[in-house]
């Protein structure tokens, strides 16, 4: 047997305070370089893997991002061109409103990201056991959360700001300063979020989630109240000059000179104004550079503060969090699970037990249901606010179909993100399922029913709410609800079927499973399905409700457009939607079931 030659232990010192030459505490610079180098190596390796194994997803991300950016740019260009004559006050208010709400959102999103990175990640556990400075660990994880939280701002904000610069004929310096301004701005709320997270964990460990939840809820409620009072008015006053003046005056609360959002807005507006330093000390470029310096210097100061705080309370918070006692789960809801299990026939009981199991996993995973609540809650808020404006009949119907598409798209992100990986996530527990007297088909059908029923209730409810707010007539409401039901079934069928057809039983991370080839393909198919359903129903309905279809029945066109705009065309569209829905539901399920029956774990 190989007897390893063990290298003698180097000169160890048993005298405290004198480590041998083989090891020394690295300097601050060396430690920072090392962690930055680690970050760069990991990023490069991840990029190589993505290029090798996820080209479809990468291509889609780039193309769709470019499409999204271009669409936003066009939208903002038209908007700024329209507002150009009203420039000074309106733009300043809009920018301040946008950046201040972004500031608040970034603080809390970074707080949550830092919580996950600093206290819940395996990497932080490793770094804590190495001779790394706590502040070095903080900044290492801060870089991660900074990029995660800021990419959304850059993707959403850059088309807006570029469009503004083009409309204003801004000098080239404006476009050069855009990225430094955005980065300097984001550093401030990102650092504040990190500090808030550390302070909450260290100082109120038992109540940390409650404190954060209360703070986020209060801030969100405040923001919603502000938005609601800014926009709420009698229907007759909507979009009138008086309504406009009142709305703008309500937004003025965001124009506070000590807000970083005001510094950003003012700096960008100055930079775009076109005056140069050659026109004197009050040159706009110098003024904008002062605002940039204000942002950057405050960001750097906050970074120093954050490092000081991390050195004192990060390890303490980590220790306290590790000692947290898990709260006992309330048993109140078990009656629902029991009722669900026992309702129905004995033959269907294994199926119901599997559904109850998935339901328990869903509601105990805060990452899943919180996103569900947030997204659908925001949609509900938007739908409730629709009645602020007046619409004519066909315009309202068009918006109704667009809202239907939005509901479908949100649902598809959930089915791809959470439902598609469900079969794969059974991988490590497959040995349990294999030993049970349960047919593999029942496992797949249980996921389908769970997704379909779970999605139908909120989605159909939201579509109904949208139609009520828009004042749409009941026949069109019925068409919307049929389409919504078809979307729920089809999206569930695609997600579950593709998940069974292309499972990854070794992977344990749902996000990695959904971001692979199968998940990306499921997302693309889901998007195409939604577009097809909405168009098949919307086009004939819209044609029918417009003068072409409804009022001129006697002089209807005899071509295809005319037929499509007739009542027969509408029913044909609905029938096509139902057929498409059945195909989208059953075909992937059939293929998935066939593959899953013979799958070896």
């Amino acid at each position, binding site marked *: 047997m190989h007897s390893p*030659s*063990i290298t003698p232990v180097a000169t*160890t010192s048993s005298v405290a305070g004198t480590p041998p030459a083989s090891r020394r505490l690295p300097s601050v610079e060396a430690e920072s370089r090392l962690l930055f180098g680690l970050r760069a190596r*990991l990023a490069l390796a991840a990029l190589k893997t993505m290029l090798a194994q996820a080209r479809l997803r990468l291509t889609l991300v780039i193309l769709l991002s470019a499409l999204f950016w271009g669409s936003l740019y066009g939208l903002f260009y038209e908007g700024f061109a329209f507002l150009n004559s009203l420039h000074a006050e309106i733009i300043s208010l809009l920018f301040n409103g946008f950046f201040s709400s972004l500031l608040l959102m970034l603080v809390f999103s970074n707080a949550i990201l830092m919580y996950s990175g600093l206290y819940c990640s395996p990497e932080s556990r490793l770094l804590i056991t190495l*001779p790394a400075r706590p502040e070095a660990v903080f900044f290492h994880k801060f870089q991660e959360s900074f990029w995660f939280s800021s990419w959304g701002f850059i993707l959403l904000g850059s088309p807006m700001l570029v469009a503004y610069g083009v409309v204003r004929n801004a000098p080239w310096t404006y476009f050069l300063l855009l990225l430094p301004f955005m980065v300097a701005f984001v550093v401030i709320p990102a650092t504040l979020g990190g500090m808030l997270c550390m302070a909450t964990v260290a100082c109120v460990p038992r109540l940390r989630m409650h404190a954060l939840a209360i703070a986020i809820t209060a801030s969100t409620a405040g923001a919603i109240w502000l938005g609601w009072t800014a926009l709420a008015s009698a229907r007759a006053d909507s979009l009138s000059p008086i309504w406009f003046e009142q709305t703008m005056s309500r937004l003025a609360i965001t124009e506070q000179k000590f807000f970083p959002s005001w510094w950003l807005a003012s700096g960008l507006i100055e930079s775009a104004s076109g005056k140069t330093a050659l026109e004197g000390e009050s040159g706009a470029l110098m003024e904008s550079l002062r605002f940039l310096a204000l942002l950057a210097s405050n960001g750097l100061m906050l970074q120093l503060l954050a490092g000081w705080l991390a050195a004192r309370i990060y390890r303490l918070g980590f220790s306290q969090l590790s000692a947290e006692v898990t709260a006992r789960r309330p048993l109140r809801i078990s009656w629902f699970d029991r009722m669900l299990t026992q309702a129905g026939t004995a033959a269907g009981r294994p199926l119901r037990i599997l559904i109850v199991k998935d339901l328990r996993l869903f509601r105990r995973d805060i990452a899943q249901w919180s996103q569900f609540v947030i997204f659908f809650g925001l949609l509900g808020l938007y739908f409730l606010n629709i009645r602020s404006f007046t619409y004519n009949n066909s315009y309202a119907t068009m918006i109704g179909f667009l809202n239907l598409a939005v509901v479908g798209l949100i649902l598809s992100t959930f089915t791809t993100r959470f439902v598609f990986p469900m079969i794969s996530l059974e991988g490590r527990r497959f040995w349990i399922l294999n030993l049970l007297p349960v047919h593999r088909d029942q496992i797949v059908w249980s996921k389908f029913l769970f997704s379909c029923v779970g999605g139908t209730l909120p989605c159909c409810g939201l579509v109904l709410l949208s139609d009520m707010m828009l004042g749409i007539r009941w026949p069109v409401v019925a068409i919307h609800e049929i389409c919504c039901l078809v979307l729920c079934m089809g999206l569930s069928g695609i997600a579950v079927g593709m998940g069974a057809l292309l499972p990854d039983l070794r992977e344990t991370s749902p996000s990695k499973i959904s971001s692979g080839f199968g998940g990306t393909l499921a997302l693309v198919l889901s998007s195409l399905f939604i577009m097809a359903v909405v168009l098949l129903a919307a086009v004939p309905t819209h044609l029918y409700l417009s003068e072409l279809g409804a009022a001129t029945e006697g002089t209807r066109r005899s071509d295809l457009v005319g037929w499509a705009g007739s009542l027969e065309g509408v029913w044909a569209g609905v029938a096509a939607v139902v057929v498409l829905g059945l195909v989208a539901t059953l075909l992937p399920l059939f293929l998935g079931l066939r593959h899953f029956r013979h799958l070896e774990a």
Partner: protein
Amino acid sequence: MIEFADVTRNYGPKTAVSGFSLAIPSGELFALLGPNGAGKTTTIKMLVCLLRPSRGAVRVCGFDMVKDPRNAHLHIGYVPDDPNLYDKLTGREFLWFIAEMFGMQQQHAMQRIGEVIDNFELADFADDLTESYSLGMKQRLVFASSLLHDPDVLVLDEPMVGLDPRSVRIVKDLLRKLTHQGMTVFMSTHTLAMAEEMADRVGIMVRGQLRFLGTVEELRQQMDKQATNLEQLYLELTAPQAMATGPTLSPARPDAP
């Protein structure tokens, strides 16, 4: 080398470790045993500064783990029960990272990395991404990384999990030689046969308290069971009836720090 001075750790209303005192000199292999929930993992977490004691002090080579954790860590190598690595780093890159975090000189680091790769037979996969490693390969890599900087103290939490018999033999031989050369090894394990074979002293923890501290032979004498192996002694000592009625042998003598 390792010193627990009346250490207590609470989790809310529950006391996970109570009045734990222990001193382990250099060159000793100490095995901490106990049933699930006894407080072994909590003790190890306090030793590597993942947890702070609610009371008392933990010192390694004279450095207090709470007051001066960085200098203490320079003297510690740690192998956790659940090895987590950077998926997108190769084994060799991970070893380099650890070496640099311990401030090792480049030449010395290169030499030591070559040595541990040989010792733990990592050469076949050292340049593959760790995401492709099996549990045993990860465990060997983490073991190798814990010895790179020639620590004075090696802390092992269930070190044999996932290792094949050959790797187990490599680790056993390594531990014998390292302790012979003066390293202190603190090991938590459920593998009683290994503890009996390797440990200079054992400590048996039950419900947060040290019920026994000493050699296996001393345990046999105290329990008056001369021909019994450690497994049998342990099972008798930690039987529910024994735990309910209190210690049947003299309590563990607290080591003077």
